């Protein structure tokens, strides 16, 4: 058995990112002057206000994946499912990175990320924000079905899928639309849309506060870094379409850091990718031990009101939500001019785990099921 976690931050990853069509599309639609086509394909983002709103959605979209990933991660019993744990953990950290990257772009174009509001938190079950609602996301313990949903979340965009900021089918489509919008509005605004005020530039979160997984925080000052940031998000997330079968490029194997979609697929298939694999072939490398039963039997989509009959449990769940809300508040401030707050958020993140696992140890009535974290807005006690 080879462990997945031997991967390191590797320039090879850039290969995957380059395989994306974001840049190509922008070139085709915008740089080649093919404006009518652009309008036809995506007329959704034409103003700065629309861009602000779209990147706020991007932050919400990145965040919306975190509670379900965390629930699956924490539901795995201690000391089991080593590889699966490591994979999900690294993906969650990278999703947080993506959230920060989206916030960096929003700050770079004069927006103000809103992260500590009640409506920031999605309801589960639910769909990805502004998506085509083609699948449902639950707060659900680690299982094959859960990982299957994760694959849907991270599914690569089909080569021919159009950019779409609203009603998108894949996250890739969404970001393509945002990239197009950025290029379009920037090109059509005198002096561009990127802030030049040094005070506003200080709102960027920089790399020094990020560690623990692949990728890096790109501070965004121009369209160039914005593009890099989006490439980072999309490349790390979904990777390339499985209809692409580019035999020249080595996409898998040791030392190559591949996208979330493929990492989740390794768990589902209980196998690692190896060097000769392609997106089409799926993983054919060494077997991974996945103990699907070594999981806390957490109730599906728990809500705090479900716990009203168990006041002590209710209190614990409330404390979890307070920690979670405090964490969002912390990230909000970090993305609104106090980047150093991120270090203080680390403690909250660890607390979240311990409190979640405690909840999963508490029986939910006599149902045979266990309680779990509900991820709802709860103002912390002052």
């Amino acid at each position, binding site marked *: 058995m080879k462990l997945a976690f031997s991967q390191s931050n590797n320039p090879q990853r850039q290969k995957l990112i380059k395989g994306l069509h974001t840049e190509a599309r922008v070139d085709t639609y915008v740089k080649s002057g093919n404006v009518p086509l652009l309008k036809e394909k995506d007329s959704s983002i034409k103003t700065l206000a629309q861009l602000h709103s779209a990147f706020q959605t991007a932050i919400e979209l990145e965040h919306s994946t975190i509670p379900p990933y965390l629930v699956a991660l924490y539901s795995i019993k201690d000391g089991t499912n080593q590889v699966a744990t490591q994979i999900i953990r690294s993906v969650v950290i990278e999703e947080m990175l993506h959230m920060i990257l989206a916030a960096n772009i929003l700050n770079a174009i004069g927006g103000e990320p809103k992260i500590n509001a009640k409506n920031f938190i999605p309801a589960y079950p639910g769909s990805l924000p502004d998506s085509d609602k083609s699948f449902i996301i639950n707060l659900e313990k680690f299982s094959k079905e859960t990982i299957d949903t994760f694959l849907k979340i991270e599914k690569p965009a089909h080569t021919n899928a159009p950019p779409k900021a609203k009603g998108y089918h894949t996250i890739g489509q969404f970001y393509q639309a945002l990239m197009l919008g950025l290029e379009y509005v920037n090109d059509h605004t005198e002096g561009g849309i990127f802030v030049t005020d040094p005070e506003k530039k200080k709102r960027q979160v920089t790399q020094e506060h990020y560690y623990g997984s692949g990728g890096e925080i790109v501070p965004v000052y121009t369209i160039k870094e914005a593009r890099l940031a989006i490439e980072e998000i999309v490349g790390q997330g979904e990777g390339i379409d499985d209809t692409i079968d580019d035999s020249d490029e080595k996409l898998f194997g040791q030392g190559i850091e591949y996208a979330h979609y493929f990492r989740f697929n390794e768990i589902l298939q209980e196998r690692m990718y190896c060097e000769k694999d392609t997106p089409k072939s799926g993983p054919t490398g060494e077997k991974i031990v996945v103990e699907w039963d070594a999981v806390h039997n957490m109730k599906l989509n728990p809500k705090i009101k479900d716990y009203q009959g168990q006041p002590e449990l209710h*209190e614990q769940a409330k404390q979890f939500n307070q920690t979670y809300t405090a964490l969002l508040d912390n990230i909000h401030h970090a993305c609104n001019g106090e980047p150093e707050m991120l270090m203080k958020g680390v403690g909250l993140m660890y607390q979240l785990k311990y409190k979640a696992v405690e909840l999963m140890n508490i029986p939910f009535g006599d149902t045979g099921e266990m309680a779990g974290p509900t991820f709802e807005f709860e103002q912390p006690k002052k």
Partner: protein
Amino acid sequence: MTIQRSEKDLFLEISVYLTGFDEAELQGTGMVNTYYQAVLSNNTQPDVAYFFEMVATILQQNEGNEDALNKAISIHLMPASAYSGMAMNIINMWYTGNWGQNVVSGQAYIQGLIWDAAEAHPPGAKQPGYGSWAIPPL
């Protein structure tokens, strides 16, 4: 009418009063089963039976009156001479993960309540994250 409670239920209920942690907090450690088994395996069967008989009695007699219950625990459970010091051992187990000098399990060490009481965490586990020590506990 009182419902006949199992020894394990009684164990959890009396543990609340012995440790000062509520039921959800104790369950949250995930250790209830392990510790109940440790009580059974570290004591003689008669001691266990008499102990839980007394527990059932004092819980019932003092229901709703915490002061009276505490007094009863003090008199009937806490002395080292009572049930081979079972109550003291149970508290020590919840707080430190040890039965006497023996570590019940690695997980028992990690779940020791003493760390929670001390607003800390077990050394080597449940780490609070980079820089957390520079500010008071969350």
